[in-house]
């Protein structure tokens, strides 16, 4: 466990370097504290540490960041950890990426999503169709009612709305955007779901979101500026996933080489046995040729002998009386 090793390092520093004493004891109190009941652990060591146990339980956290900064993976990690470790099933509402791609990405991290997908994790494909036409105002009642039914069915405690900016962009004006965020937030609070809402940084959607008073925390600042701990952890996870993927590819390559070698050997043996077979056939053929020839020879010899005998017979009647 990475957390253990961190604590250990500090304990060592404690003995060798007295000036680090305060920092060390501070770390100890954090790591020794039992799991915080008010917090929902994300399973990301560094993040849980700096937030004193994870995200506020039963509250909504807004996660704003640049494209590719790891928002989707952060949300997914939170759900996977909840489902696997905390007995908190979760729902992932995907406004941007298709569920197939999300599952594929998760497999790159070594998270076994298909196992979880049966009961503990549900991915909603909520990407608006590219040719969707918007004429006038609309609301999220449809989504929330559908989610309500699903959450009840699977006992979901965690939920992630990934890339809510995509949906907000379809709403006609700022008033409608604010109203729908309010609706969504109220719905989440009433059900005491621990939620993450992610959005791309910049643009009207993100600013209308950061204006909204969420009950959890807004991770925009920590995420974009001086968020080395959080980003470091995620980056480490991304890199280790890549490393694992590379290792797997290497092993697969080796395995393929071995298989090819074995196939080559089999083919070689086959070629050899075919050579032998060919030789045997050739021998058989010459033998047969020879037999035919010798038979022909025998036949012709036999015929000559017969002729001789017949010739003798023909002459015999005349000679016989003489001989007698």
């Amino acid at each position, binding site marked *: 466990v990475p957390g253990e090793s961190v604590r250990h390092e500090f304990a060592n520093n404690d003995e060798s370097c007295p000036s680090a004493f305060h920092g060390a004891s501070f770390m100890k109190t954090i790591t020794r504290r039992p799991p915080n009941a008010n917090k929902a652990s994300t399973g990301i060591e560094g993040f849980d540490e700096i937030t004193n146990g994870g995200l506020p339980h039963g509250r909504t956290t807004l996660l704003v960041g640049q494209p590719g900064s790891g928002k989707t993976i952060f949300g997914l990690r939170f759900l996977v950890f909840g489902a696997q470790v905390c007995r908190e099933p979760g729902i992932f509402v995907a406004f941007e990426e298709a569920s197939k791609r999300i599952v594929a990405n998760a497999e790159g991290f070594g998270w076994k999503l298909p196992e979880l997908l049966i009961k503990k994790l549900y991915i*909603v*494909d*909520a990407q*608006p*169709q590219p*040719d*969707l*036409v*918007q*004429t*006038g*105002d*609309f*609301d*999220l*009642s*449809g*989504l929330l*009612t*559908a989610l*309500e*039914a*699903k959450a009840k069915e699977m006992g979901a405690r965690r939920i992630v709305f990934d890339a809510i900016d995509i*949906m907000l962009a*379809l709403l*006609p004006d700022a008033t409608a955007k604010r109203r729908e965020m309010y609706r969504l937030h109220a719905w989440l609070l009433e059900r005491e779901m621990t939620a993450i809402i992610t959005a791309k940084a910049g643009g009207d959607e993100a600013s209308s979101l950061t204006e909204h008073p969420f009950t959890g925390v807004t991770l925009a600042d920590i995420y974009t500026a001086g968020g080395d701990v959080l980003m470091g952890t995620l980056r480490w996870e991304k890199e280790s996933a890549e490393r694992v993927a590379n290792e797997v590819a290497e092993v697969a390559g080796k395995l393929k080489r071995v298989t090819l070698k074995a196939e080559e050997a089999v083919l070689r043996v086959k070629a050899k046995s075919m050579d032998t077979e060919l030789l045997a056939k050739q021998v058989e053929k010459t033998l047969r040729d020879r037999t035919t020839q010798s038979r022909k020879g025998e036949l012709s010899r036999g015929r000559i002998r017969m002729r001789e005998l017949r010739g003798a017979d023909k002459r015999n009647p005349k000679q016989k009386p003489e001989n007698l």
Partner: protein
Amino acid sequence: MIRQPRFKFRLYVAGTTQNSTRASANLTAFCTAHLPHRHEIEIVDVLQQPKRAMADSVFMTPTLIKLAPTPDRRMIGTLSHTQLLLETLGLET
């Protein structure tokens, strides 16, 4: 006489919320004006049938799906722009 295609619609609404009520009123008025005697409207309330909404991937209400003539087309909102409706349904002459 050329026989004109019959239009089949499914409108997903959320109970009697303002947007939903407006959309069904607008759709009925539009069909009476532009598709007289050649339209069918099925109204599905997501509050009553949430699973059907999930199965049809309907997350925003109101959502109108044009089922016939093919291909399917989706529109969200109160359906308040008649011109946009005409264009989307290919009824512009």
